[in-house]
Structures are given as structure tokens and as C-alpha cells.
């Protein structure tokens, strides 16, 4: 068996992007190939392999073989990347692809088989589920903050993702349609959080504690944080995604976290709030 080490050194890619890169590598895996992830992402950890912190390696049952091969330097290295035409590349994508079972189902099968969350994440999710996910819930992912920054995929497009004209009507429509009692809100944007709280008040359930102003965001303001805070950011992002996938219906944004969410679902009860928005395709995103 050949060992392939998938490497990633990044300071701008979010946790969702990391998982999608891993999934792409697993999707392109040849027969009899062992895959080992070595992701250095300093948005979420200052010192450690991100994969080992939050996930189990996909071929954990071959740990001894992998260790021996690493010792003997009998491996090949590949740098993680998503191909332009991949379904996992949301930039400039046709949304029908993300609703197409022929494309999504094989990816979901791979996700369930190989992307295994560490026990502490599972425990945290079960605690949250037992406390808050008892009623019919809709999950809303509002990706704001730095995605509207200069150089980002949706540069200066905050006006196209307006709360009153775009987000609110869509949420109300789905609340009535699915007889929803609670709204799980996944956002780190101060402005959207404020408006959602004003509008839906006690219906809102929220997990993540880190909130950024309009221009900031984890990709900008979180870079120099300490290890504990970075780990917390990653944990909350992953948990947000798991919880969203367990809600009755999901309203998503064009974001890697949202794609991760739909890959964890068993149904097609989701829609994108910002499907009218066009991103700058394949732009080289700069964090700083």
C-alpha cells in the first residue's frame, strides 16, 4: 500500500475549506492508497496538525503501517487543492450541482466514512442537542464579516445580502412552510446577529461566542490569537456545522461551512440565501 501525505500550509482558509480539501483528496484517492493529513492552518492552531486536533485520521486502523512508512520515508507528498470544476468549489458554481443527488450522494458517503470528528466534539454536540434541539428548528447560516472585504470572493457586496430585503423574507417563508419553532443561528457577524435578535427574539438559539464587526472576521482578526482562542474558533465552527445539519431545514450561505453542512445531511432540506449573488471566480483571496 502506498502512503500519500496530504499537506496544507495556509493562513487564510477556514475550517470548512480544510475539510472540503480533505474530502477532495479522498475523492481522488486511488485503490490501495493510504492517506494521511498534515494540515498546518494557523487560523486555528499555532503549533499543531489541525487534523489531529479535531479529527481522526481517515485510515486510523493502519496507524502502525503509516508510522513505519513515515519513519522509512516511504511516502509521497501532495499539496491539497480543489480542482476548478469540482462540485466542492462553490466559487462561480451552479447551485443545481449542490442539489443534485448524483453528485452529492457519493460525496456524503465519503464524508461519513472518512471524516470522523474527535470524541470531544461529539460529546459537545450531544449535550447541545439534548438541551436545545428538541423542537422543530431551522438553521440559518449568515456568512458576513470579512467575505465582503476588499480582495474576498464577495468584495463590497454587503448590500446584496441585506437583512430586510433578502434574509428576513426567506426565513419567515420557511418558518411558515415547515411549522418551525426555533431558529439556530450560525453567524459571527455583529450586524446580522443584532438584527436577527431584534426580529426573532427568543426563537434564536446560538452557540458561537466570538463576534466580529463588519470589516473584521476570523480570517483577519483571528490570525494572531492565542492557541486556546484559535481552538475555540475551530470547535465552534465545526459544531455550528454539525448542529445545522441536524436541523429540520437549513438556509445556507455561499461558504465552505455551508457546503460541509449539506454534506452531513441525509436529506435535501436546504436552500441558499445568497444564490442571487455572484462571486468573483478564482480570485486570489488575501487575508492581509
Amino acid at each position, binding site marked *: 500500500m502506498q502512503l500519500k501525505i496530504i499537506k496544507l500550509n495556509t*493562513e487564510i482558509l477556514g475550517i470548512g475549506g480544510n475539510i472540503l480539501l480533505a474530502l477532495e483528496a479522498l475523492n481522488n484517492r486511488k485503490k490501495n492508497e493510504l492517506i494521511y493529513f498534515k494540515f*498546518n492552518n*494557523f487560523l486555528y492552531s*499555532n*503549533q499543531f496538525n489541525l487534523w489531529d486536533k479535531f479529527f481522526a485520521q481517515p485510515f486510523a486502523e493502519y496507524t502502525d503501517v503509516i508510522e513505519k512508512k513515515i519513519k522509512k520515508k516511504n511516502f509521497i507528498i501532495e499539496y491539497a487543492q480543489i480542482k476548478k470544476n469540482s462540485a466542492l468549489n462553490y466559487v462561480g458554481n451552479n447551485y443545481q450541482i449542490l442539489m443534485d443527488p448524483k453528485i452529492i450522494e457519493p460525496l456524503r458517503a465519503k464524508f461519513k466514512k472518512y471524516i470522523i470528528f474527535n470524541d470531544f466534539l461529539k460529546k459537545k454536540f450531544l449535550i447541545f442537542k439534548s438541551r436545545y434541539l428538541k423542537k422543530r428548528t431551522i438553521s440559518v447560516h449568515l456568512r458576513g464579516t470579512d467575505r465582503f472585504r476588499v480582495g474576498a470572493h464577495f468584495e463590497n457586496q454587503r448590500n446584496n445580502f441585506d437583512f430586510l430585503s433578502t434574509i428576513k423574507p426567506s426565513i419567515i417563508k420557511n418558518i411558515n412552510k415547515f411549522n418551525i419553532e426555533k431558529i439556530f443561528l450560525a453567524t459571527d457577524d455583529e450586524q446580522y446577529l443584532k438584527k436577527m435578535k431584534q426580529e426573532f427574539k427568543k426563537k434564536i438559539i446560538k452557540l458561537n461566542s466570538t463576534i466580529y464587526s463588519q470589516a473584521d472576521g476570523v480570517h483577519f*482578526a483571528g490570525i*494572531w490569537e*492565542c492557541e486556546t482562542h484559535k481552538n475555540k474558533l475551530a470547535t465552534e465552527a465545526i459544531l455550528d456545522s454539525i448542529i445545522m445539519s441536524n436541523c429540520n431545514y437549513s438556509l445556507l450561505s455561499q461558504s465552505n461551512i455551508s457546503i460541509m453542512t449539506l454534506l452531513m445531511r441525509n436529506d435535501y432540506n436546504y436552500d441558499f440565501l445568497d444564490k442571487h449573488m455572484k462571486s468573483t471566480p478564482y480570485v486570489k483571496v488575501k487575508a492581509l
Partner: protein
Amino acid sequence: MTLVLTANFLLVLLIIEISKSLMVNNYFVNNLFFPAIKNSSNKKEIFNWLFNLFFLCSIISIIFISIIYFLIFVFIKNFLFLFLLFLIPLIILNSFFMIYQKFLRREKSMLIKFSSSTLYIIFFIIFFNYKNYDLIIFGFTVIILLEIIISYFILKNKLTLKISGNYAKDFRNYYFVKKFTKFFFKLQITKIFLVNIASITLIIIMLKTY
């Protein structure tokens, strides 16, 4: 004689102060690093990491300059390098405190500046009869060391400085140095300054040798 000494004194002082201010007034530090950490959860930890980074850079520069010193000493027996061995690492370490002062924007930075300029004047008055480059460099090394000590005691209430080996393998080090160096060399004034400092050093070495 006194005119030559004053000129030499001011020249060395100018080189040291310009190099420090170029490090501190880096575009990356002021316009990207400071805004990013403005609302951070643990500023003390960030500055502790930054201190460790500058401390590490100081040690690396000591090692680097020692190697150069021992290689050159075979051909040019010049003791000036011996003081540079301590002067450059101390300038690097001093820059950390200057960066921190800028972040605080308090009158404390003025106090530190005032005390260090007083030290420069005292040093000049004591040694103005000696036309000796080694002595000037030695004096400046001592002054910068004193400036670091003064800065530490003035700012210590706001800082928790602990030297830790864990910070050596921190990913932030690489990213900070990469961005810092990129913006440092992007400035035209840095390039001009570096070319000038190199030529002045060469002239001094040549004058001392022949």
C-alpha cells in the same frame, strides 16, 4: 578633534536611531498587525509571543554575527565587530519595546525616550575626548541595554513576559517575519539606508585597517 568626534558620534547615533525607527514604523506593524489585534481576546499573550519572537531573533543574530566575526577576524583584526555582536541583538530587542509603546500610545514612551536621550548626552560628555569607534559602539550598546531595562520596568505592569520554548515552533513567527521583512524591504528609504550603512561600514573598516 572634537568636531570629528561629534560627527562620528552623531553618525553612529543616526544609524542606530534610523534603523530602530525603520523597524518600528513598519507599515505591516502599524496598519495591519495593530488593527488585527485591537479586539483580540488575550493581548498579553500576543505580546508575550512577540517578545519571545524578538528574543529568538536576537539570539539568532548573535549566533549569525559571531560566525561572521570569527570568519572575518582571521583577515581583519577589528574589535568593532565584537560590540556589534551585542549591539544588533539589543536593537532588535529594543524594537519590541518600542513597538509595544506605540501600541499603548501613552506618555510612558516619552519617559523612556527622555531617559535614553539623557543617557546619550551623559555618555557624550564623559567620552568626548576619545576618538575611538570601539568606545562609541560600546557606549551605545550599554545605553540600549539600559533603555531595554528602563522600558521593561516602566511597562512591566502591562506585560507578562515569559520566555518559553513552545513559542519557537509557533506558526505566527514565520508569518510575522515574512510580512515584516516584505514591508521592510518594500520601502525605498530602507533600501537607501541599507546601501548607505553598508558603504559607511566598509569605509570605517578600510580606514581602521589601513
